[in-house]
């Protein structure tokens, strides 16, 4: 199971980095999402992978799995969800404003060329 989990994390990370290097905002956002999935699994695995054990006190439990990493993953999921929402809205805003969804700023003539609206 460790090998499978490690392979999945590696695959997700590789795919995420590939997408992150694209030039348009949508693939980049997908790449960020894939990376956040990878890191969530990674945090989960950092508490050691065990099967079928309870995370919190149970009267008949012989052993426990680490509950802390599960709490950390929950926090990380919530945060990455919120951040994804922010960047999607921002990317749509930038697309509507500029008419292009490129992530680079090469066609910018210069910064702060005029007083902000």
């Amino acid at each position, binding site marked *: 199971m460790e090998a499978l989990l490690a392979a999945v994390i590696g695959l997700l990370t590789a795919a995420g980095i590939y997408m992150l290097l694209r030039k348009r905002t949508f693939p980049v956002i997908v790449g960020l999402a894939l990376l956040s999935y990878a*890191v969530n699994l990674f945090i989960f695995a950092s508490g050691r992978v065990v099967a079928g054990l309870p995370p919190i006190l149970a009267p008949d439990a012989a052993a426990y799995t680490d509950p802390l990493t599960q709490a950390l993953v929950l926090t990380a999921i919530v945060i990455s969800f919120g951040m994804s929402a922010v*960047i999607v809205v921002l990317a749509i805003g*930038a697309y509507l404003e500029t008419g292009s969804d490129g992530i680079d700023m090469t066609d910018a003539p210069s*910064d702060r060329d005029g007083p902000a609206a």
Partner: protein
Amino acid sequence: MNHWIIVPVVLPAILAGLTVLAMRGDLVLQRVFGLGGTVALGGVALALLVAADANPPEVYRLGDWPAPFGIVLVLDRLAALMLTLTAFLALCVQLYVIGTGWDKRGRHFHALFGFQLMGLNGAFLTGDVFNLFVFFEVLLIASYGLMIHGGGRERLRAGVQYVTFNLVASTLFLFGLATIYSVTGTLNMADLAIKAATLPEGEAALLRVAGLLLLIVFGIKAALVPFHFWLPGTYANAPGPVAALFAIMTKVGAYSILRVFTLILPPSTPATGALYADILLPVALVTLAVGALGVLGARTVGRMVAFAAVASMGTLFVAVSQFTPAATTAALYYVLHSTLATAALFLIADLILARRGDLSLAEARPAFAGSGLIAWLFLGATVALAGMPPLSGFLGKLMILEVARDQMALVWSVILVTSLLMIVGFAQAGSTVFWKSHALPADHREADTAALPFVSVGLLLAAIVALTVLAGPVMGYLSATSASMWDPGPYIAAHALPEG
């Protein structure tokens, strides 16, 4: 427990929430509560500063769960110092925003500002590395909103880049934290300090990797080369006062590096040794060089100030990378100085933008109303930032040169040459904006006569002067601070960790 410790986190959070919910349509009310909150925050921060100086580090257990199981906030000298700096900077920025009406150009400025302060204060106070991540996210998500405040084409595009860069950094942060947890089984900083010092040989490689990941993450925040790319575009396109507030954001990276690599992974840790110091020194020197060249080559005032911020981070990290108590003292002094000086210069750039119409350095524009006073302010701030006497930048650089005495040939030459480059760059910009303009026919635009923005810039410059004049007492506090950072015994003991 001293409940005042949590006030810097809770107060801005409550006020910001109230601002969104109850004062949405009323700008005057927002301003009153925003400013009142920041003043109150300043008072609390000062009280905590005095308390931290008098008492050993104090732990605040959230929900009264004992460390390392519960999350703790820790008040020590370093945290109190950063809180006070943040509150003062926030006050100046807020006065400026109210004076110039920046908060009218978009919605929810004061609410976002409050959440930003909550994240900053939390990051400085927390005693748990995962909690540090959470507060990083709080301050970042507020900064995303502030960065695109007012909208506009270039600002939105720069905003997308800024957010993307920081999301990648957050992911790396999580990878680093999970690695640390898998090696040590704890995320409490004091507990980590004990566990890292006694780590068995076989686990050292993982801890080194985790430390490096954290170094990269904090380096991104602190705009160290090669992770500085986001800074010039972001800061030059952000609203001027927001860029001024962001002067403290790079210092969050510096603070985190100082905290993690003196408390948890100091050079005396057998598992990691001087690995991080060896990386940081060359990185700092290259950052300094890139920043200074950027100042020299920038085509707008905004980008020039942003590169000056990069250069100041380089100078700061030359001191940090020495990893000795004396060098840490110098670094802390430079943190105070460069935050104030960078913020002042960003505000001055915004003053120029509002009057001159643009910030281009390509050619001179007609003289604008009030250019005389602004030129003096510009002179003061650039003298401070370039490190010329008589202001605090000179003292700061002098101390950094002093602590880097054993690498004189390399470090001294880089710092001195880059200082010269920055002086030339600032002088060029100043003469284009202020001097050459007088050769052109005057521009009879309606002058903005609001005094509050000048009060705000004046306060920042006055603080720089105070930092110079009162360098003796300030250094006394800072040496005590760095001494306590390099002797973490009381910090760890305050947690009352269980044995074993």
